[in-house]
């Protein structure tokens, strides 16, 4: 049986890499993907807890997190397309002002 802490450690590593990616990356789509990575890291720890404590609630939360992630993907990519249409660029530094 794999200890729970191994899963939590992997989750922490993935979340940390996601945080670092969001800070380092300049491309909106890459930052978006790093956020997805962070969501997945949290999902992993939820599933690990759910599986070890024999409680299905954690996996229900994961299900809902995935739904929210799908909605976020739709809206986020819509925003990215709208910004790209205005600025002709995906660099976040080019879109630091909300005014057109």
């Amino acid at each position, binding site marked *: 049986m794999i200890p729970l802490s191994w899963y939590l450690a992997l989750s922490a590593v993935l979340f940390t890499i996601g945080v*670092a990616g969001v800070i380092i990356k300049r491309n909106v789509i*890459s930052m978006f993907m790093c956020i997805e990575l962070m969501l*997945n890291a949290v999902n992993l720890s939820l599933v690990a807890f759910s599986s070890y404590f024999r*409680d299905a609630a954690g996996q229900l939360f994961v299900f809902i997190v*995935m739904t929210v992630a799908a909605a976020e993907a739709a809206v986020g*990519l819509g925003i990215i397309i709208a910004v790209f249409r205005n600025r002709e660029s*995906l660099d976040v530094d080019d879109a630091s002002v909300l005014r057109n």
Partner: protein
Amino acid sequence: MSAAMTLNPMLGLLAAAVGALVDYADEMLFGVLFLLAVGAAVSLVTQRNPLYCAISLVFVFLSLAGLYLLLAAPFIAAVQVIVYAGAIMVLVVFVIMLLNVEDEERRPLRLRYLIPTAITLAAVLFAEVAFILYFVHDAGPERANAAAPANTGLTANIGAGLFTTYLLPFEITSVLILMAIVGAITLARRASVLRPTDVVVPGAQVLPRHALAGAEQGDASAVITHTTAEAESALGLTNAPHRRERD
């Protein structure tokens, strides 16, 4: 005889190796998936081409699906592959292709202290998590529950939970998705083809003179026509087929 003598210990060694492989199959599988997930995540952060980032992220999702299977959560593993690796990443790749994104330019970062800041913050975050893990580790309630059968992750149990105890969050989720659909359509809709700075003269078409056949090169003074037919005759395109009609 001597060949059999030397073969026997080797067979014994092989049997021991296979036995260890079977005993530690979980751990080895976890190790492989761990390395795949972390490697793909590092690749996600270090790649410059967003398309390669997307492929790395798909590998992270797939290895996480494998870990969910290892945790006896087959439903979540299937949803992970279908929703994340399938739907969301297809959407991301579609947007990357649609916007025709090239590599990130290697221009100097506007904020030079950003990468050291990111690494420092990540290290602090990881230290916090490691601290918590170190002290929570020997709480050990999982040992108390380890004897119970692992059927929490089965689809029937999740469905039962979803439609009884957690029915309200489930319904709120559907409203959320409806809002996301409306929001995405509103955001991505092309409000108008013209930019706010463009000046429009109704019914007029303005061409630079050097666009006309036979005109002197570099003559940028304007020719103004008022109908498509006039513009076609000015350009010498009267008998040319329309692009629409060719398609």
